[in-house]
């Protein structure tokens, strides 16, 4: 199976201010996006992919000048892949507040001429969706064949189905949730506190000081990473293996170091992942995105009644969850399924018995990928059967 190959990102600038849920608004902002495949004549084959916490518009393929930078869902999106770019026109879009190109805290605040830093307004899932809808308007896409996302991306897809029911025919929500649990919020706050208490954070204006709160970001990533994996997966990959065993080629003299450095392989792995993350991710972006996760709760406007909240949806739904995902467990997906069933929506729900925890949504699991493939085949069949020029 081939990848989409070399791709290049595009930007779209917006002058009209975007009103945000917080009451603030953003003006002169830019959105970064990538497209794969070809938009058909009646514009009925567009699929929007919403990204998760540390991802971006770069969903598939790679860049000519950076061939190692492969898109985060390259196993899902591409020619002959489950979301087949020979048939669908796929758009990857980067959200506001991100550090991957769309307007974010490190960009210049037109009001001050300095980087936004801490001044960048708090954005929500709904704000992102509103911005995405404007991009769709400009591309002339009045209705997506599907809006799709995993985790935080799944929240955006769900928000699309509520905010713009007529603008998507299918809503694909993978390893997601209708709202975070107290435990989820707690983990996010530990991550934020790590960043906020880093002396190099400088109240969010660290750009001016020429530093980055690396240690805070590292710890934040370490906490996050633990929650993406399952206990079994970690046990199998790392167990209680000692780093010194690897260093000494498995020599028997290897043992505990009786200090606070690295003893165990899992420590080495997490610190390495944390360090790597701190070199490319922005601390303010991490704060913003985790808050967007925490705030997402569309049923809040309906006294917590998700059934009533989803009554306004008209899309058909595909949901998938993974049995070992304890961050966004199958119970959370089932809440959405239950509310959709109560509204008699067309729902397909796969609960996949995969060992990899939350991260499973990004990995190769033949059962998961063939379900998505089968579902998108159905979507494609519906496009083929549409009368010419129709969008229904």
């Amino acid at each position, binding site marked *: 199976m081939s990848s989409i190959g070399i791709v290049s990102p595009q930007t779209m600038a917006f002058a009209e201010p975007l009103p945000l849920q917080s009451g603030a608004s953003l003006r002169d902002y830019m959105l970064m996006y990538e497209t794969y495949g070809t938009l058909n004549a009646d514009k009925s084959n567009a699929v929007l992919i919403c990204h998760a916490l540390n991802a971006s518009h770069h969903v598939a393929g790679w860049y000519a000048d950076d061939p190692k930078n492969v898109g985060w869902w390259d196993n899902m999106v591409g020619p002959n892949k489950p979301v087949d770019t020979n048939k669908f026109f796929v758009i990857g879009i980067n959200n506001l507040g991100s550090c991957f190109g769309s307007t974010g805290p490190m960009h210049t605040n037109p009001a001050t001429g300095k980087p936004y830093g801490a001044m960048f307004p708090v954005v929500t899932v709904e704000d992102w969706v509103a911005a995405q809808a404007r991009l769709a308007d400009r591309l002339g896409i009045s209705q997506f064949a599907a809006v799709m996302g995993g985790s935080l991306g799944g929240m955006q897809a769900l928000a699309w189905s509520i905010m713009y029911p007529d603008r998507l025919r299918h809503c694909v929500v993978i390893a997601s949730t209708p709202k975070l649990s107290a435990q989820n919020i707690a983990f996010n706050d530990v991550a934020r506190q790590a960043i906020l208490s880093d002396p190099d954070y400088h109240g969010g204006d660290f750009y001016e000081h020429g530093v980055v709160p690396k240690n805070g970001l590292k710890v934040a990533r370490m906490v996050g990473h633990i929650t993406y994996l399952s206990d079994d997966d970690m046990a199998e990959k790392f167990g209680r293996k000692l780093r010194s065993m690897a260093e000494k080629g498995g020599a028997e003299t290897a043992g505990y170091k009786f200090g606070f450095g690295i003893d165990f392989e899992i420590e080495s792995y997490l610190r390495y992942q944390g360090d790597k993350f701190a070199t490319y991710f922005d601390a303010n972006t991490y704060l913003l995105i985790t808050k967007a996760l925490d705030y997402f709760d569309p049923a809040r406007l309906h006294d917590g009644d998700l059934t009533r909240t989803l009554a306004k949806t008209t899309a058909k739904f595909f949901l998938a969850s993974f049995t070992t995902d304890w961050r966004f467990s199958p119970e959370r997906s*089932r809440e959405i*399924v*239950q509310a959709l*069933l*109560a509204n*008699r929506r*067309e*729902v*397909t*729900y*796969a*609960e*996949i*018995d995969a060992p990899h925890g939350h991260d499973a949504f990004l990995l190769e699991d033949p*059962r998961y990928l*063939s*379900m998505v493939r*089968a*579902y998108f*085949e*159905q979507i494609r*069949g519906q496009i083929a059967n549409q009368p010419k020029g129709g969008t229904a």
Partner: protein
Amino acid sequence: MTFDDLKTTRPDLAFIAHWIRPGTHVLDVGCGDGFMMDYLQTDKGCTGYGLELADDKVLESTQRGVRVVQQDFEKGGLALFGDNSFDTVLCLSALQMMQHVEALLRDIVRVGNEAIVSFPNFAYWPHRVALLKGRMPVSKTLPYQWYDTPNVRCATIEDFRALAAEVGVEVLEYVALAEGRIVDFLPNLRGELAVFRLRKRGGEVRP
């Protein structure tokens, strides 16, 4: 799929399909590859879902265009559905594989205004002959050896009637089928598949 297609491939399902009114909302518990839901959707204009646990069957159902919910109904999978949320709940040749038949039966009539349940009739005469010869029956409806069978709850037509009465389920109709045809004479002896149309006692009567 046309009725003729259904009748040729699955005469038992073709018979059961007569009991399902066009355009109604149906749940198929243990929908397998989605064959029945596919027929009901395409030919009878029914809506609804299949409920299935096995990965490969969930995939096949999806490939057929059947909306399927992957849940273990032994572990409360029917809890996803509200009371009386379906016109008809089907449970076709799946009941005998369940551990908790009684709980499932209660749940089926809770979520459906009506239910259609089918299972292999253990009292079918070739089964009795096998037992008389001292061996567990192996037949077209019970095609497994005793040590590898997924069928853990074998019942006769009379057994099921007794259970239905005990859990407060009203039997609206029942038939015994052999080769997809109704057996009127000595059904508990000559029928290989038992099919019951059920309703919760005191349940709503819809036209």
